[in-house]
């Protein structure tokens, strides 16, 4: 008979088939139209999200907040260099970084960690002390290795993220989507430099110390339960400025620029100075170079 076609299987009724198909379509629609990572979001949606954040932060901190949506500048690949022969471990960079990037004061989060090391042993992480507090630095026989995110070209942290909440931008900055991070801390385990920090509790920054100059992938306030890290002051560097630590360093040990510009300071260092990478054997290919300026 014409009513019973060959396509209809004896195991599934027309009603069952329709239900499953409808459920699949609904699932697809929900996934496709649901929330997205900031990586995939359209400019329009991003602007709406930014307007919401600006309103929220304004209410929370009682001051006008600007959240930038500046993208990577074409033809720019950022790199950083630090002169180990100049650094004297005074930690002005840490303070500048904490204030610029709205890092939690209590519980304490600091993206930069200055390691005091023994001159006789050289760079030896098992013998490094970040908690030194002599009356004056440099201490005899010690040298100082500040560490933060190395912005690797082959970053282990972004590979292990199960949700894709962290990635490398086109200008080489490794960023985190704080709304997409589920706080599993796989990236912290993967990072060989200890550069990622977890918000175990609600981060606290006094409202009067909030830096209102923000970037959506950078120093906007983080919620509890997400990972954060150095972004090379993305809110400053994408506007052409030096990172806060570079300007704060009283010894001038910190250098920053565009690796693709042959006239940049960073290229001068790479071409004329002895540079070294931390844990080079891991093939993470950091864009953070240490050098001896003497």
């Amino acid at each position, binding site marked *: 008979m014409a009513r019973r076609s060959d396509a209809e299987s004896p195991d599934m009724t027309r009603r069952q088939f329709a239900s499953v198909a409808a459920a699949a379509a609904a699932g697809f629609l929900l996934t496709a139209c649901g929330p997205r990572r900031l990586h995939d979001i359209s400019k329009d949606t991003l602007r709406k999200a930014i307007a919401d954040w600006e309103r929220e932060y304004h209410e929370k901190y009682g001051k006008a907040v600007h959240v930038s949506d500046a993208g990577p500048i074409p033809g*720019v690949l950022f790199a950083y260099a630090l002169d180990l022969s100049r650094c004297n471990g005074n930690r002005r960079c840490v*303070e500048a970084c904490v204030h610029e990037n709205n890092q939690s004061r209590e519980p304490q989060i600091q993206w930069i960690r200055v390691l005091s090391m023994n001159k006789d042993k050289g760079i030896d992480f098992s013998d490094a002390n970040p908690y030194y507090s002599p009356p004056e630095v*440099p201490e005899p026989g010690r040298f100082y290795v500040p560490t933060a995110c190395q912005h690797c070209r082959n970053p282990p942290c972004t590979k292990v993220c199960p949700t894709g909440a962290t990635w490398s931008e086109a200008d080489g900055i490794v960023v985190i989507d704080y709304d997409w991070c589920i706080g599993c801390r796989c990236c912290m385990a993967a990072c060989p430099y200890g550069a990622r920090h977890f918000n175990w509790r609600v981060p606290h920054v006094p409202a009067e110390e909030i830096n209102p100059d923000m970037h959506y992938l950078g120093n906007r306030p983080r919620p509890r339960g997400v990972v954060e890290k150095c972004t090379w002051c993305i809110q400053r560097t994408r506007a052409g400025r030096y990172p806060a630590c570079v300007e704060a360093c009283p010894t001038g040990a910190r*250098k920053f620029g565009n690796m693709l*510009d042959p006239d940049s*300071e960073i290229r001068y260092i790479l071409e004329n*100075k002895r540079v070294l990478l931390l844990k080079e054997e891991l093939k993470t290919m950091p864009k953070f170079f240490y050098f001896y300026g003497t």
Partner: protein
Amino acid sequence: MRNAILAFVIAMLVALIVAALNASAQQAATPGARVEVPPPPFTDGVFPCSNCHNTTMPANRTRRVLTDFHTDIDLKHDAEHRWCLDCHDADDRDQLHLASGEPVRFEESYRLCGQCHGEKYRDWRAGVHGRRVGQWNGQKQYLLCVHCHSPHQPRFKPMPPLAGPRPPVRPK
């Protein structure tokens, strides 16, 4: 025909030389154009030096230890071989002078320092020695050598560190 080739070769040579001159002029001009330096850090009330060192006070060019004035200056900068008038100019008190005798304004004192510290001078010009503030791809401010290194005691002074991170506390 031969003349034509000769003329062409000469024209090419002239063009090359002009291009090279242009390029070197631009190279020399670029760092100066994009760099600013703040005024020198004088101790209050000492500048201009000619306020005291004027015609009423003739220059005493004999090398000696100063006992009446400027006794606060303890020279620890190759003191064995140097004294005041090796850098300060006795004829124009408000200027310094190079080894050649060419006067140098205090605003350009880096030229004087660069006579001995050539490597540092080169690095400083490239922006690699010393602190820079401003834009990585545009206008930026240098510091003079003397902003960080006292010319009389140039060694960089030790400083107190800011508080370090609090060590983690293990729950009991």
